[in-house]
């Protein structure tokens, strides 16, 4: 029996607003508990919620960014459940009239574009944070400590249709969504800070089955790596059960990072158990065309637009996807540099490989102000035209990162310009052949490893001033005709 996995993702995006969703408490990043709380976000009786306009603008922007249709007449619902981090005993959320419906996000997997359909984008509020006290084991906690600074921070939930088939595709989708919210400027998008939190709904069934298998929800994946591992593990676990003819239980499972397994948390509530009903404190939310148009004005240069520009510069889809997910300065630097090099691949390789590598090594986050795209393009052109070796180019870059130099003048002044004089190289080659007759006699064909040794000898005798490619060409011509 051939099995197929079907995955749907639910992602919570914490919006980057100044104040909370339904009250004017400041959104704070602090370890000091309960310092930004009020009767509304503490769920005290009689407090009334008033929605944050910027949060509504942001969710409209995200819905548009995810190509959704906007629901013009929406509303808020109460999702009822008891948990101490939710003191009202209900979360204000949206049920059957979410802000955005039926969208899609384009993702890149290897060199292919895929579309992930989005079912809904809805607005809700975050809960407080719980810390369980006790001997270390979560199930032997003696008390729970509560901090409500996070309670009421605007959250957007983005739900995909069950259209994802592999863990890699799920990771690519989250990376894309993360970049969309960063480019829209509506969330910091930091996974490690919990700005983006995701759950995966996974089922496994016979590939020819018309219906999906039983859905299991996986929670507690804090990084893209754990998302990938948790999905792979869960697909394996369910596949074993299906193959044995056992039925998979519909439940919520928790990813145990230490044991690298999913563990059953509880049987899953159906949506009826949440007893959704329209929140009488919050009347109809009208999102008219003016509001949509105003929100649209703030949308520019999303990952798909950036990929298009990058592809037009000559990059492959996967390289474009890498750069559109990177920092903005690198994207801008690449585009201005490639204008002066006209060589997309070597510009990409040099900036993402050598430049970023050296910056990491030197522990610098920002380029010094004298390093601009013109100097970098000059440097790339120097080694692309074989005027300097790649090794010299790397040394010039190191110098450039610490001192305001002109790459070309520096190369000349420091004797780094390679000879492209064939006669000069030929003389060197002849002399090396003569001095290494024993090796020359052992050569069998042009692919022989010893050819590399001879090229190295020529390079050494020239003090690396000649181009190794040219040396090899001349050497082979001399040896094999």
């Amino acid at each position, binding site marked *: 029996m051939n099995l197929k996995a079907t995955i749907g993702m639910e992602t919570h995006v914490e919006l980057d*607003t*100044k*104040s909370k969703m339904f009250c*004017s*408490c*400041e*959104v704070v990043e602090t370890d*000091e*508990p*309960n*310092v*930004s*709380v*009020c*009767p509304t976000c*503490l769920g005290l009786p009689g407090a009334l919620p*008033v*929605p*944050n*306009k*910027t*949060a*509504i603008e942001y969710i409209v922007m995200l819905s548009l960014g995810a190509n959704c249709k906007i629901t013009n*007449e929406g*509303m808020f619902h109460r999702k*009822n*459940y*008891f*948990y*101490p981090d939710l003191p009202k005993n209900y979360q204000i959320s949206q049920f059957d*009239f979410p802000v955005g419906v039926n969208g899609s996000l384009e993702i890149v997997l290897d060199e292919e574009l895929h579309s992930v359909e989005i079912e809904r984008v809805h607005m809700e509020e975050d809960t407080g944070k*719980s*810390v*369980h*006290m*006790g001997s270390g084991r*979560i*199930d032997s*906690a*003696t*008390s*729970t*400590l*509560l*901090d*409500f600074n996070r309670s009421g921070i605007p959250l957007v939930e983005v739900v995909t249709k069950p259209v994802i088939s592999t863990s890699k595709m799920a990771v690519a989708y989250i990376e894309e969504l993360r970049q969309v919210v960063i480019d829209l400027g509506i969330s910091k998008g930091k996974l490690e800070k919990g700005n983006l939190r995701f759950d995966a709904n996974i089922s496994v069934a016979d590939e020819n089955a018309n219906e999906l298998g039983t859905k299991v929800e996986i929670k507690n994946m804090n990084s893209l790596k754990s998302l990938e591992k948790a999905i792979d593990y869960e697909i394996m676990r369910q596949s074993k059960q299906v193959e044995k003819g056992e039925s998979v239980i519909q439940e919520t499972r928790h990813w145990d990072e230490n044991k690298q397994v999913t563990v059953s*948390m*509880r049987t899953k509530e159906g949506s009826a*158990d949440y*007893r959704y009903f*329209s929140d*009488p404190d*919050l*009347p*109809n*939310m*009208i999102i008219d065309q003016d509001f949509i148009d105003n929100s649209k004005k703030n949308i520019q240069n999303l990952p798909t637009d950036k990929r298009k520009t990058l592809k037009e510069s000559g990059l492959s889809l996967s390289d474009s996807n890498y750069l559109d997910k990177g920092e903005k300065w690198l994207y801008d630097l690449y585009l201005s540099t490639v204008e002066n090099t006209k060589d997309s691949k070597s510009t990409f390789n040099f900036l993402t490989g050598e430049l970023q590598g050296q910056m990491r090594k030197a522990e610098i986050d920002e380029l010094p102000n004298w390093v601009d795209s013109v100097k970098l393009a000059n440097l790339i052109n120097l080694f692309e035209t074989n005027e300097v070796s790649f090794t010299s180019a790397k040394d010039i870059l190191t110098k450039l990162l610490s001192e305001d130099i002109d790459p070309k003048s520096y190369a000349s002044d420091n004797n780094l310009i390679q000879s492209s004089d064939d006669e000069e190289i030929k003389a060197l080659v002849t002399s090396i052949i003569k001095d290494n007759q024993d090796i020359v006699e052992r050569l069998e064909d042009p692919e022989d490893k010893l050819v590399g040794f001879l090229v190295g000898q020529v390079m050494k005798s020239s003090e690396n001033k000649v181009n190794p490619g040219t040396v090899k060409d001349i050497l082979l011509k001399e040896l094999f005709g």
Partner: protein
Amino acid sequence: MSENFNIDDVSNLASIELSEDEKAKLQKDLQIILEHVDALKNIDVKDEKIDIHPLSKVLELRKDESKESLKHEDAMMNSPETKDGHFVVPPSIE
């Protein structure tokens, strides 16, 4: 008539413990409510305009400005137990 109505599920969801007598009484009362809702389901509304919310008022939105919150001490004032600035509750593991 609505089937699968189980008073134990409902008391569990509501986190309210019920005695057997209370269960019997509520089972009867809630069943009447469900029958009433079932009666509503039989009304032909296909030509009616859908009011999605009980209020006709339109939601007012607030500018994204932060204002002073409760003082920490005031926020914690009525809590029976606190620790390091947190509210303390019995162990609650999902």
